[in-house]
Structure formats: structure tokens, C-alpha cells
């Protein structure tokens, strides 16, 4: 009998002042089969080489530094001014990067989603204040698009909660949107629960073309506003008492695929 040596996937989960989804993010990564390693941003700034031992890097949700200067701005600044090259090398060697909610806002701010070397003033993507003008927490359905993303299954529907005030995906102009499409960067869209095109509130924030998540051109960096890590148990779903028996929350699949993909890429 031959045994396949399975290498443990190590995931570095970043935290800083105001990070608040670290518990459920670590839980999701653990249940998906990886070993999460929660690190304060200061530790990573002091020792960027920490990332070498990991194949997944996650920026979880929260209100980093209170979002005091804009959603994700200060953490984005710390990363883009001191870790950008480290992260670009990490992605180039097959590492996966995930930003959820505030983590997505951080990734947009760093420019990492627009590919290597994009200057701040050339940036074309933004996450703006919700069209409703305020924070909203509700469950939505995501559809995985045929995209470059290394681990999403195209066509799959995923029920997840959103909880944000600034999640309206916007682009500088039509050319940027066109470029996203050409590069297959549109990874996730808000849809109605039957998969059809969503309007408010199924699309909770007024995002252009109901875009909920995008990946970088390599497909190894993904950012999305909704929280798959908040749908891990059969009882997280808001209508579970109306549904038949489920063995787990649908969000777990999302993380399991990511871990499997990281494991395969690392081989």
C-alpha cells in the first residue's frame, strides 16, 4: 500500500487593531484542513520572512484601525508601503491570498488585485459607501463566475452573509471594467437565491454589475465582501429551520477548495 505524503497547508491570518473576524476565519481554515497561524501585522512587518513557511495569506474582516481614514486604508498603507514586494513574491511562487470584507478593502487599497507594479495613482478599483448610505448586514447568494480564480467552481451558488458599510464595488471607468472581464477577474456576483440577476437587497450595496468579489490576473489573489467563514455550521443559515438536513454550512466548501488548491500548488 502506497501512502501519499500530505503536506500540511499553513495559513497566515493577519490581525491588527480592529480585526474582528479572526475567530471564525481560523476556524474555517482549520475545519478546511489547514493550520491557521494568527499573526499581528507588527510581527509580519518586523519579519516578512514569516510568510515563507505559509501557502495561504488571509486578511480577515473587521474595522482595521477603526477604518478611521477610509475602509482598510491604514492597514492597506502599511502593506503597500512595506510588504507589497513580499506579497508579490508570495503570489508568484504559488501562494494564495484571500481578503474578506475589510480584508477585501485592504487588498483593493494595496493595489495587489490589479496585478504587480500598479501605482497608487493608476488604481482603477474602489469599494465605496453602500448605495443605501449605511452599514447593512443580511444574507445574500453569491454565484461563482467563470474566472481566473484558482479555486472557485464556476456556476456554484453560495449563501453567505454580508456585513459592511463600504462594499459598493466601483471602477474608475468603463475601460477598467473591460480589462477585468478580459482578464477573467470577475470572480463572484450577487444573484437572487435562484441564480437570476439581483437587485437591491439581493445585491446589498449597488456594486457595478453586482460584483461581489474579484481576483487578480493570476487567479491566486481573491477579495470578496461577503463572509463565507460565517456559514460553517448547519445552523448559521438564516432559513435552516425551513431547509432539509444539512451536514455543514456552504461556506466551508469555499475554504476547503482553497486549502486543497494551495496544497496542489505547493507540490
Amino acid at each position, binding site marked *: 500500500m502506497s501512502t501519499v505524503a500530505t503536506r500540511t497547508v499553513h495559513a497566515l491570518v493577519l490581525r491588527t*487593531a480592529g480585526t474582528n473576524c479572526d475567530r471564525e476565519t481560523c476556524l474555517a481554515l482549520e475545519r478546511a484542513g489547514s493550520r491557521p497561524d494568527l499573526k499581528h501585522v507588527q510581527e509580519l512587518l518586523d519579519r516578512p520572512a514569516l510568510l515563507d513557511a505559509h501557502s495561504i495569506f488571509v486578511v480577515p*474582516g473587521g474595522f482595521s*484601525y477603526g477604518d478611521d481614514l477610509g475602509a482598510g486604508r491604514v492597514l492597506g498603507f502599511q502593506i503597500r508601503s512595506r510588504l507589497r514586494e513580499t506579497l508579490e513574491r508570495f503570489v508568484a511562487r504559488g501562494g494564495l491570498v484571500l481578503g474578506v470584507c475589510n480584508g477585501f478593502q485592504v487588498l483593493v487599497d494595496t493595489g495587489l488585485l490589479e496585478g504587480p507594479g500598479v501605482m497608487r495613482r493608476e488604481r482603477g478599483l474602489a469599494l465605496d459607501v453602500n448605495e443605501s448610505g449605511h452599514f447593512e448586514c443580511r444574507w445574500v447568494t453569491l454565484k461563482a463566475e467563470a474566472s481566473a480564480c484558482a479555486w472557485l467552481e464556476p456556476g456554484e451558488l453560495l449563501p453567505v452573509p454580508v*456585513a459592511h458599510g463600504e462594499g459598493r464595488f466601483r471602477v474608475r471607468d468603463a475601460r477598467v471594467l473591460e480589462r477585468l472581464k478580459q482578464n477573467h477577474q470577475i470572480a463572484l456576483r450577487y444573484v437572487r437565491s435562484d441564480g437570476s440577476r439581483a437587485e437591491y437587497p439581493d445585491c446589498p450595496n449597488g456594486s457595478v454589475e453586482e460584483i461581489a468579489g474579484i481576483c487578480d490576473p493570476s487567479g491566486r489573489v481573491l477579495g470578496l465582501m461577503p*463572509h463565507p467563514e460565517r456559514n460553517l455550521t448547519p445552523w448559521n443559515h438564516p432559513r435552516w429551520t425551513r431547509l432539509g438536513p444539512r451536514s455543514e454550512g456552504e461556506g466551508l466548501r469555499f475554504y476547503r477548495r482553497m486549502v486543497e488548491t494551495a496544497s496542489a500548488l505547493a507540490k
Partner: protein
Amino acid sequence: MSTVTAQPVQRARERLPEAWRVEVFRRPDLDDPDGVRALREFAELGARSITSARLGRGFLLSPKLERTSVEALVQELFADPVLDVARVTAPGQAPTIDRAVRHRVLVMRKPGVMDSVAQTIERTIARSTLAKSSDGAPIRALTYQAWELVGEVDPRELERVAKRVFANEVIEDLWIDREDVHFTLPDDHAVRPSVTVVLRDASDDELVRLSRQGCLSLTLLEMQEVRAHYRGLEREPSDCELETIAQTWSEHCKHKTFAGKIDFDGEHIENLFKDTIQRATRELAKPWCISVFKDNAGIVAFERAGETQWDVCFKVETHNHPSAIDPYGGAGTGIGGVIRDVLGVGLGAKPIANTDCFFVGPLDLEDARLPKGCMHPRRILRGVIAGVRDYGNRMGIPTVNGGVWVDPRYVGNPLVYAGTVGLLPRWAAEKSVAPGDVILCVGGRTGRDGIHGATFSSIELDEDSSVVSSSAVQIGDPITEKRVRDGLLRARDLRLYRGITDCGAGGLSSAVGEMSAECGARVHLERVPLKYPGLSPAEIWISEAQERMVLAVPPEHLDAIRAIFAAEDVDATPIGEFTDTKKLELFYGAQRVAELDLHFLHEGTPRPLRIARSTKRVESDPGAPPCANPGAALLALLASPNIASKEWIVRQYDHEVQGTSAIKALVGEREDGPGNGAVLQPLADSRAGVAIGCGANPRYGVLDPWAMASAAIDEALRNVVAVGGDPERTAILDNFSWGNCANPEQLGSLVLAARACYATSVAFGTPFISGKDSLNNEFRVGDEVISIPPTLLVSALAHVHDVAQCVTMDAKSAGNRVAQVGMTHGELGGSHYLAHVGQDGGRVPRPDLALAPKQLVALHRAIRAGLVRSVHDLSEGGLAVAAAEMAFAGRLGLELALSKVPTAELAPTYDANATRLFSESCTRFLVEVEERHVAAFEAAMKERDFAWLGSVTNTGRLIVRGVKGQTVVDLPVEELARAHRGGFAG
């Protein structure tokens, strides 16, 4: 044709700030949601000539910065490259304004009021190479808001609306069409030393004056006690000593009335609190009560998971007076404070859920009828919701349960309750302090904010309150509290400290005073980290600056714990040590500024006898007048503010963070059904849960305080049982908000309500584990005093054995049977139906204390046995509203027969249909059962009051037949849902 001219921004003699100014606006082609909101509020105030409003985020920066540094800051930190445009103005210069802008309104926090954004800027700059000042000094920042308005408006009219829409003058200053904003710290003058107060020879009149002028809120009797104490010591008190006594003896900290001696209609009550609330818990002696009434919050056993026994704790606080004058800051610091309570329970609990309940004046009140000095209830409600939202969401704690109640008597004195549930390991349930331990002050810095909060909360509000008490208001900084939380729980698990408490009302004076009560303490006030210089020792000692905790740290752990907090960027400063002197000794440098005997401080409060009288209200009982059109009445009730959908509030709270949510506030096919209670699954490796619910009904309180209190407990229990909580493992919390209890009738109603709490708690076997009272909730306008209705909020925390067994309130499938559990009585006193038909008085619902507990247990067993598909409790609006909500939440029809409703014998003035539809009798539920479980459910409910009323249908209509078989309600569920969400929505 009108001509557009350039705005001459700089007025004569205006002194422009010596600081760089940056204003960041959204790109002109993008809409501005803040501006849209402001325009809507302008329109509400009748100012329709303003056609556009846009908000600029303003920053003032040290003048010594190079222009290139300022531009780097703008590009890297202040402005988004896709969404924003920025305007940079050099020090001493006037900004260049777009020609279309007719007016500018600048809003800036008063000097010394928390500006967390400015702190973030200063920290970020200090830790980067982005910007340097020419003199190498640290770069200072302040923030402001710059509103730019288009449209002609009279200057006085502009001032009127700007003050209502843009600013709260309690904490903020406005500049209308002026540019001379300040760039200063609060008066940086020299430290005022500690002073002694001449007290020993003061006359009684002088004592009263001293108490009032010093905002001490001590009574003459108490001042006399203090005078006698210092006569005995043969010296005068210092200001620090007097302030410490005032804080410690305040109604807020000491609960002098509730724990005081009372003469109730000639009957002597030695201590009302001990005789009712505490007595119930003592007699029930539940082994799962781990720590009650002695700590920041009550602790009950939860569940063993792996090696660890876990407990949960719950605390609910009021923050009424601060919220009346600054709703946003008041509610935010209210939730911040109760979170710190939970962080300071035992050795610290992790906050896992927040609750909030608001009692406000009518949201549609005409402006002309608003009493002078009051904020409009709409503005108060929006403010408190935003305050809870911004604090709770940033802390990463799900806000899962709450309520809104509306009554005209809350106009001048709204009530804001905030609660937090925490999770902690059993080993952390107890704390101690040992002489020699270091007093470690952790968290935010101390400023002049919140001076006299404890004493302020103990006095009545009046039209000038917002002027005189601005220093009592604080602004919270949730991210500082989150940092403290992160460091604290790490230090706890490494067992680096022995004792902890939060700095709440009274600040350090209360925290250190409380912790040192059994031993003694020596504090060096000059070591306390300050936001700005100039605070006197007394100010440092009683400041209620937010986000601070006090720890007792064994000296050998000091370095380790400071390193942990340093890693989280949190100040942790040793400010003294605990001693065995039984004295509280304060120093400022070499000067001894206080030496207080701890026994006198904690036990010396005089206990005067207070007079209470029961009032016999003789009211005619209007019964239940017949209803010509029950359907129309039902639609009106669904839209009434207490019943109408709270979805617009719930959606603004992050109720999913931490990923533990199992039953949510909104449930059903479209997630718009008002759930009974919330359930969380706090541990990843256990299916046990906690259910959270609440009950209150101020309408009952005016008519019958005893019944009100009993019914509030019943409602809180219904809520948790209806989702799957175990009534035999449920703990409850009491939060009394009352009028002025110097009034014997007010105090009499408090006695009755407290006695009802005792009787009801014992009958249900649900102990009180924590509580709080806020008395003196009244508002004075001229000679008129508006007292709030007696308001008891009961919160319940129930154990859920397995979250998979939980149920929701939405109808599930056509064909299922529907039963009413519980008996309907002729109880419409304080009901929504009587209010709808314009009647007052009547018999207030109260639970049958012999039968109700059995009813809850039987229903709970049926739920756990899986016999039940949905459960909704009957409360405000009775059966009619419950049935409507159950139907539209499931987007299914219901067909019910009133002739089947279990009903007690009714007096002739009670119409048979109206009573069955709208009575608000306690301990009743609507229950949906599948056909295959009907027999088992009947067996489970044997000997209990219950009957089948009808069934779930697929018609999409609520059809109710009257006692004679005629159709009394026939409405599509979509219309019911529309009515329900048709109330005020922000």
C-alpha cells in the same frame, strides 16, 4: 436670471488657523450619501431651498510640515485615488471654494473631546516615513467636517437647521460661513493643585450650596455625615476626598434608594433590594448560578467542552441621561461601558453578544410640541442606533436582540439600555486583590471628559441640562477598547493578573475604591497617562474618560503583562499599589492629596427612611369594546411603532460577526419575521447554545406596576422558551428605570414592581443574576415635570441544550395544525387594542404563577422532542398580531377559528371576538405541529391549557373566523407584511 459669484471666503478680522488644511470631498460626478441624508433632514425641518449638500472630511495638520509631506499624506492616506478629490490650503490661507457653493458650515469637536481619527493619523505618521515636520516635533492632527451647501437660505434659518442637522453643540462647535476654526488643545495652563474645602464650619445652607455648585449630588443628610466625619478627624477634606465620597455615594454607584430603608404604607422595609430581587435568587439557590450580584455581571454555568468548563455572564446597563443630550455618544459609550463590565467580570470574559433597548418619544411628534431643551425623538433614535452600531460593529460583537418602545413621556428623558453577554472559563470566575499588587491602568488616556457622570446620572434633567452637563458626555473609541480586549484576554489566559475592574462611572475613584475596599491602596495620580496637560489631581481621579481598565498585578508579572499590552499598542501604566492600610491614599508628586478611611467611604452612607405609598387607581374597566373591522385594526396595530418592523435597525447591526449565530432576530422565508429571541452557539466544539430575550411594557406600568413587572418577566421567558431555551436553566436581569423616587407614589410603585419580581422569579424558578436601577428619570420644563412611566426591562439568558433543536416563529408548511397554548383572559389594560380604540384603564395582564411555569416546561419539552415546527409568543397586539406575523414570515396562509381559543369566563363588557383577538394575556403561544406529531403533542400538553385553532394553508391569506363562524379577518399575507414594515424606518 441669477448670477453666480465667487464666494468671498475670508471675512474681515477672521483669524485663519495656523495649520495645513486638507478637505477631502467625493469626486464631483459621484453622489454623496452623507449629503443626501443631510438634505432629507433639512427637508424634514422645512429648509427646502438648499438643493445640494456635500461633506468634506477636514484635517488640520501641524504648520511645520513641508508641502510635499502634506501632499504625500493626502495621496497615501486621506484620499481614495478613484473616489475622492482633495483641497489643500496652506497655513493662514483661506480655502478656494467652488463658485456654486453658497454656504460653508464647519463642524469641529470642542477641545479635549475624543477625536479618534486624529489619533489614528498621529500614530500612523509617527510610525512611517511619510511626513516630517521642519522642527522634528511630533505631528499633530485634528479633524473637522466641512459642509458645502448650494441654494439660498436666510442666515438665521441656516443657523437653525445647521445646529440640528450637522452638529451637537454639547460636544461640537460650528462655524457658519466662517473659516477661523481653531487648532488648539484644551486650555494648556498650569496644573491646578489640590485644594482643601472648608466644610467643618459650614452651615446646612452652605452644605447644600456646596453640593450643588460642586455637582456632588449629595443630600443635606449626606453632607452632614461628611461634615461630622471631618470634624472627628479635626481637619478639612481635600477636593479629591470630597469628590471620591460623592462618586462612591452616588445613586448611580450605591443604589441608595433601592437598598435603602423604606416605609411602605406603614410597613418597614429594611432593604428593598435584598428583600425582593436578591431574596428570590437566594431562595432558589440554583447550583448553576456561579456568581451573582457581587461582580460586574452575573455568571451562570454554560457547558463543558474538551478540558474546559465554560460559563456565560450577562449585564445590562442604562445610559439614559448622557443619551438624552448626546444620543450618538451616549449610546456608544453606553455599549462601550457594558462591554467593559463584561471584560471585567471575574478575571475577564470574552464579549459574545450585545443587546439594546430604546424607549423614546413619539417619532411623528410635531416640532411645535417638542418641549424646550429636548431633541426630537427621531433624532434621538437615529443617534442612539448609530452610536450602538458604530461601537458594537467595530468591537466585533454581534448585536442580536433588543427593542424599541414609544411613549410621549419619554420625550425629555429617553431610556437607553445596552447589554453584553460574555463567555469565560470557570477558573476565571473569581478575582482577588493582594496587598503589594501593582495597580495597573490599562487602555485609553485620561482627559477632562466625563467629569461627574456618576453624579449627573443621579439628578433630574431640565431644559438647561445640555448646557451645564456637557462635560458629563463622552465620546467612545471602540478600536482602543478592541485593543484592550485583545491584550486582556491574552494576559488572562497567561494568568498574569489577580484582579480587574473597569473604569465606569466615577472613573479611577470608583474602580480603585472598589478594588481596594478590603485592603487599601496608594495611588500616584501624576503617573496616570493624560491626553493633554493641565488636569488637576481631582480631575484625573474622577474623569470618566473611556476605554480604561484597572488591574491588580503581582509585581513579578509586571514586565510580562506590559509587554503584552505594548504589542497591542495599549498603554499599561503602573499608578500605585494595593496596601493593607484600609486607607485610600492619593498623591500628586510629593503632595498627599487624599487619605480616606475605606470603611467610612464604603459603609458610611447614611440610610434615611424613605416614604412610599401604594396608589389605588380607581379606573373603570372599559372591557374589550367590539371591533367593527378587526382586519383594519390588525393592520393599524402592525404598523404601530412598538410592533412595526425593526428591520431598518437590525440590518445596521452586524449580528453575524464571530460566526456563532443560530437563530436570528429576523427569520422566515424573506427574513422579515420578527423572531422571538436570538440563539448563539458560542463554542466551536459544542452544540449547546444560549438564548437571549427581553420583556418590557411601560403601558402596563402606569396602570399596575405589580402586573407590569410580572408580565415583563413572563415576556422575557416566553421569548427564550419559544426559540428552544430551557425555562429551568434560565437566568434573568432586572433594569428598573423610574421617575423621581423622592415622590412617595413613585417609590410605592417601585416597591410593588420589586415585590412582583420576587414572586414571579420564585414561581418560575428563574433567578435574577444581575441588575441595575436608574431613578430620577424626569424632565422639567418650567414648572411642569414629565416623569417617565415606570419601566422595567427584564432580560433573559437561557441555556439551549442543542441548537439543532431550536425553532423559529415562521409558518413552515401548508397542512400543519396550529394550536394556541395558554389561556386568554379579559386582560386588555395597557393593550395596543385599547390604545387603538382610544380607551384607557382596564385590567393589566399578569401571568398565573401557579400554572405558567408548568406551561413553559411542557412546551419546552415538546420543542426538544421535535414535535413542533414553529412557535410564536403572543404579546403586544395579542393573537391577531402573532398570527399575522407567523403567516407573513412564512409567506403562507393561516386559517383560525376564534371559537376554539382557550378562554376564561369573560365579563359582559368583553366582546368575545375582540378579546380573543387582542387580549394580551401572558404565557400564550401559537404553535405549528405536523399532522404526524399531533397525538404526541397532545400527550405532551396534557393537563395544560391548549387547543387547536386551525391550520397552515397555501392560500397566502390570514383568515380568522369569529366565535359564531363568521369571517372577521381575511387579508393577504403580503398586505400584512407591508403594514408591518410601514412604520418609521430611519
